[in-house]
């Protein structure tokens, strides 16, 4: 495995660990409902601070169930991930195409090194 790939994998593992550790160590156990959204907790805090507060506007559309809501959230993530994947796929393809064209043009051994430099930062 290339060094670059290793670092990228390590970054992903670190992110996964940060997400899993609170669950693994049961950090939500002190709560009645563990791991609820902080947005919802803020709503609860508002009703504690000002018990008579009534939201004066309600959402135009509300997902009818938790399932529909999670489906829409997945849709959001999938759309984003799809565009990102398209971007990187396109870039990779273009780079390979350019490299091949270069190799064909020069026909020498020189071309192989051009695309392989993976300098980081500056």
């Amino acid at each position: 495995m290339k060094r670059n790939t290793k670092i990228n994998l390590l970054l992903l593992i670190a992110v996964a660990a940060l997400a899993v550790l609170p669950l693994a160590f049961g950090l939500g156990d002190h709560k009645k409902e563990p791991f609820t959204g902080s947005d919802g907790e803020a709503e609860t805090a508002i009703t504690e601070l000002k018990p008579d507060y009534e939201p004066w506007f309600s959402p135009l559309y509300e997902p009818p169930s938790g399932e529909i809501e999670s489906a829409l959230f997945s849709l959001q993530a999938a759309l984003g991930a799809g565009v990102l994947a398209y971007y990187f796929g396109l870039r990779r393809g273009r780079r390979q195409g350019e490299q091949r064209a270069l190799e064909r043009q020069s026909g020498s051994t020189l071309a192989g090194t051009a695309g392989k430099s993976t300098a980081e930062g500056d």
Partner: protein
Amino acid sequence: MHIAEGFLPPAHAVAWGVASAPFVVHGVRSLTREVREHPESTLLLGASGAFTFVLSALKLPSVTGSCSHPTGTGLGAILFRPPIMAVLGTITLLFQALLLAHGGLTTLGANVFSMAIVGPWAGYAVYKLLRRSNVPLMVTVFFAAFVADLSTYCVTSVQLALAFPDPGSGFLGALGKFGSIFAVTQIPLAVSEGLLTVLVMRLLVQSSKGELTRLGVLVAQKQARTGTETEAVGR
């Protein structure tokens, strides 16, 4: 950081809307100019918006025993400067307000202010500051994304504390309360966002060197330094 629909008193909702509007209008102008002058950057603009889309849909558990989500605004702010991120962030917030009942139209101004304005600007400021001090690019990117994420949630805490001061301890008491809900929960998530932004920036450095050089993120290595400096002035 989404303040739920109807959960800000009308006066506050309007005030945040008025505060946010000029940033978004200015952002739309910068965005159209960018696309007109550099049509080739449309793809990367889309990718930056997509990054915000993914990250703000990812609800992650945190050390406080509650869940929250990153914002993904640091990356776009570094690449295209904060005004453009104001637009991309607003689009994400609108999507969530209209389809997911997450956030809301009446609180859009406040949410835009925290996530699409203060977050990107704070991250961008950190980026510029660290770059000027010759900190390595990836370290800079990490802290810029970290600060963009965390500052967003600090602003939300301030917004809620202003609207709902504690009857006993006033604004500061409420700020402590909302801060412990939002900001503390957010710290590990901001670290995650920093790491993910570094990952995407690493992939960009591998795949889009020319683009990053044009945007001034990477310094052209073979050209004389003056070449990039004139670009910096021109922006």
